[in-house]
């Protein structure tokens, strides 16, 4: 293993190269831009034999990916925020057509008001689209999850698209050490794309046809079943990934000092790193606090969550999103997973639009949860309300 230091976006672009996509189509948008610039350079320099399709919008970018994927190519795209919002119709279409597209999401807040900074509202907005959603804690996970996602998506028993989500700026623009795998290892894990079916003029088929009321319900059922099956596929290939690359992804939820924890924090993405440092400090003061890192939001690993949290007294969920008028999307799921357990689940909406989250905020949230105060926007500046 050779560690190199590089920007997250460049590490992702180089990893996508290692996955050998045959078609890339994307439209640049902050903070995803360095990824598509990197990929455009890689293709232009002849380091990847792929078609890079320049388009005029994100809607077109994913539409091009649909055509290329249906024609039997491995494809890649990346976007964020408004770009993902503009894609919305195509996001649902590509999933319904069961095309194994992998798309990087450099998580960013949604307008209005305009914000280029990080939260996870964008990918959460696509919660019900039928895409797999993986969330990276650091850039090593972001690149590993790209490789893993292709393996899972292209399994003929799954056939789904996947988001690989990584926090915009916080991960996309950070320089940190990365183990960029060798081409040989990635090839041995992934192999060439073997489409289940593809567009062929000699043997015509159609994708995304009309489904009358006699068929639509069954299409949705089968799609839902496939997303649920993806949980076991991620575990299986995540284990295989670990055997080849030395980093295990066989769990959809990962505990940190959770075994004997009285209070559990549940979080997704890069905030988990800050939470771990805060937990170490709280542990040094004798407080039994642990973390459950949700690596996968769709499919939602309800049973795994319930099992991992069964022994705790209090659950504090950190949500970098909000379902306005309800709660944070993660808290809604955690409450459902823990239904019947009588463990109180408190939700904290925080870090929206790039608001920085510090160790002291995590400690404060643990104090609030232990006092039974939650279901709130954390860190509001009262003076501007």
């Amino acid at each position, binding site marked *: 293993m050779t560690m190199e230091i590089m920007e997250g976006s460049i590490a992702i672009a180089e990893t996508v190269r290692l996955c050998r996509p045959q078609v890339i189509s994307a439209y640049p948008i902050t903070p995803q831009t360095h990824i598509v610039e990197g990929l455009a350079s890689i293709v232009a320099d002849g380091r990847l034999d792929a078609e890079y399709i320049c388009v005029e919008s994100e809607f077109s970018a994913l539409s091009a990916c649909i055509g290329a994927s249906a024609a039997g190519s491995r494809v890649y795209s990346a976007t964020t925020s408004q770009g993902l919002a503009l894609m919305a119709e195509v996001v649902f279409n590509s999933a319904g057509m069961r095309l194994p597209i992998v798309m990087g999401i450099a998580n960013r807040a949604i307008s209005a008001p305009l914000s280029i900074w990080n939260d996870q509202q964008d990918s959460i907005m696509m919660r019900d689209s039928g895409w797999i959603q993986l969330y990276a804690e650091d850039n090593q996970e972001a690149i590993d999850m790209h490789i893993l996602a292709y393996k899972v998506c292209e399994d003929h028993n799954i056939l789904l698209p996947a988001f690989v989500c990584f926090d915009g700026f916080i991960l996309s*623009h950070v*320089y940190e*050490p990365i183990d960029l795998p060798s081409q040989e290892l990635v090839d041995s894990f992934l192999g060439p794309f073997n489409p289940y079916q593809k567009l062929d003029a000699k043997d015509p088929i159609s994708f995304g046809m009309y489904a009358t009321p006699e068929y639509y319900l069954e299409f949705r059922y089968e799609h839902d079943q496939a997303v649920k099956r993806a949980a076991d596929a991620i575990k299986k290939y995540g284990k295989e990934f670990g055997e080849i690359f030395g980093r295990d992804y066989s769990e959809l939820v990962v505990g940190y000092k959770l075994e004997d924890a009285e209070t559990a924090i549940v979080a997704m993405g890069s905030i*988990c790193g*800050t939470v771990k440092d805060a937990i170490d400090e709280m542990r040094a003061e004798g407080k039994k606090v642990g973390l459950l890192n949700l690596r996968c939001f769709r499919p939602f690993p309800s049973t795994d969550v319930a099992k991992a949290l069964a022994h705790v007294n209090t659950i504090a969920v950190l949500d970098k999103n909000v379902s306005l008028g309800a709660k944070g999307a993660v808290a809604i799921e955690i409450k459902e997973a823990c239904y019947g357990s009588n463990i109180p689940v408190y939700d904290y909406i925080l870090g929206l639009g790039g608001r920085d989250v510090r*160790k002291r905020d995590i400690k404060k949230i643990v104090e609030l949860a232990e006092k039974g105060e939650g279901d709130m926007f954390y860190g509001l500046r009262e003076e501007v309300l």
Partner: protein
Amino acid sequence: MRELRIHGRGGQGSVTAAELIATAAFTAGVYSQAFPAFGVERRGAPVQAFVRFSDEKIRLRSQIYEPDYIIVQDSTLIRDVNVFAGMSEGGIAIINTEKEGTYNLPKGVKLIVIDATKIALEEIGLPITNTTLMGAFAAASGEITLEALEGAIKERFDAKLADSNIAAAKRAYAMVKEGHV
């Protein structure tokens, strides 16, 4: 873990400086992390960039509030930004200025004042001071070696630009080492 905060203005290469310092530190065998605080991305606006150094893998993702070191690329920032915020005893502040002012320096913080603009103009021909200040940082902090810094600069810039930037970094390094600042 040690932390560096770089204050500059858009266009002065603060983010590049953070990346090159992190690269130099990592190649010399410690974990490092560099990232920017992006605001409104326009020339002249105050910007910050951050670097962490640690013997263990760095997990912390928040910005830096209690830096061990600061680099100030433009001393006029001091009027508008509390560049010394969060510094404490044992810290090192490196300020680029042609004339030392009176600073509200926290107790026990070592001040290094250097005319990096003059050095950059003479060595590079441009008032871009990031590499010069990186040389001063290497000498003052010991977090990165001059050799590793040279390597990081060579990797980033083409040969001619790298040579002049390395010359500027070396000159600042020597000035700090010899106490001529």
